[in-house]
């Protein structure tokens, strides 16, 4: 059991406070086209530190904040919190539960928090890399990209092995 919960608020189409509790086993996410499934994948990438808007299917940084819609105003902030179970102490922390939060504002400002305390982006990335959680490589396989390892050049594939080594 590693991922405990994902909380989204204002991230893309998740305008309302939304919580996704993970099972120690396998969790399936289903639903119609355009309902928001890949947006959940994007939120996980984002809270783990993804900086490339292109990887999040966006163009500018405010694209990941709820843009408004049917009689609903846009929001000024997107916030995603990932709760990690640390009962087995796989994370470099004395807490049995570690939360990692990322916020983005329309102004362009960003906040990064570990267990509710503001930290710098590099502190958050440090914690995650020590825990061997990456927002890249093969921990998140995006839609339409399953055969990317085959299309990329031999040298690019090498980096998958370096991540695994």
């Amino acid at each position, binding site marked *: 059991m590693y991922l405990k919960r994902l909380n989204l608020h204002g991230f893309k189409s998740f*305008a309302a406070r939304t919580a996704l509790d993970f099972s120690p*086993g396998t969790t*399936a996410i*289903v639903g119609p086209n355009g309902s928001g499934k890949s947006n959940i994948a994007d939120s996980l990438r984002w809270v783990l530190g993804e900086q490339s808007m292109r990887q999040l299917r966006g163009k500018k940084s405010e694209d990941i904040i709820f843009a408004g819609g049917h009689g609903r105003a846009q929001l000024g902030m997107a916030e995603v919190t990932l709760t990690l179970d640390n009962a087995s102490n796989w994370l470099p922390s004395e807490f049995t539960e570690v939360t990692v939060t990322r916020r983005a504002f329309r102004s362009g400002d960003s906040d990064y928090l570990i267990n509710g305390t503001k930290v710098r982006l590099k502190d958050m990335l440090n914690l995650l890399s020590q825990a061997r959680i990456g927002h890249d490589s093969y921990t998140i396989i995006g839609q339409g990209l*399953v055969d990317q*390892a085959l299309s990329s050049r031999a040298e690019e594939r090498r*980096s998958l092995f370096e991540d695994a*080594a």
Partner: protein
Amino acid sequence: MKRRFDETFQAVNERFRQHFVTLFQGGNARLEMQQPKRGAKGEADDEDEELAEALPAKKNNIAGGVEIFVQIPGKKVQDLSLLSGGERSLVSSALLFALLETNPPPFCLLDEVDAALDESNVVRFCEILLTLAHQTQFIVITHNRVTMTHANVIYGVSMTDSVSRILSMKLAEAQVSAR
């Protein structure tokens, strides 16, 4: 550092072949380290060395890339490009499974990686996923009813008035609108 890479490479290579054989019910597959480009081309070498110094160690192409060779059961070894859409998904999945098994990440999210697979291939894909699920927490986004049956928990996402919401679902409900 290099030794650790080689050991990892060998381990992944062995698991890649195993998962390939499971998914294709036979055949053969292997990964090969390309030799770095050296030798008689004097001029190219100097450029290569400059390139090697300019690139960060991780992306150092001079170390050589990883080639993939596969032989689908009954068929000859051919260029990967001639493989079908589903076959490409399976080969890529075999490699992914090998990497996940060799160095299990805490979790792994797969977004519709079963999209190109026919029913019998989805079944085999899911069987491997089941074995890896002891070490890695999988989150699987799917439209496929077979894949859904392999989950402990199913979340249904729906959109009303431009807002996404999530509901915990039972298997039977989820399969109603699945493919």
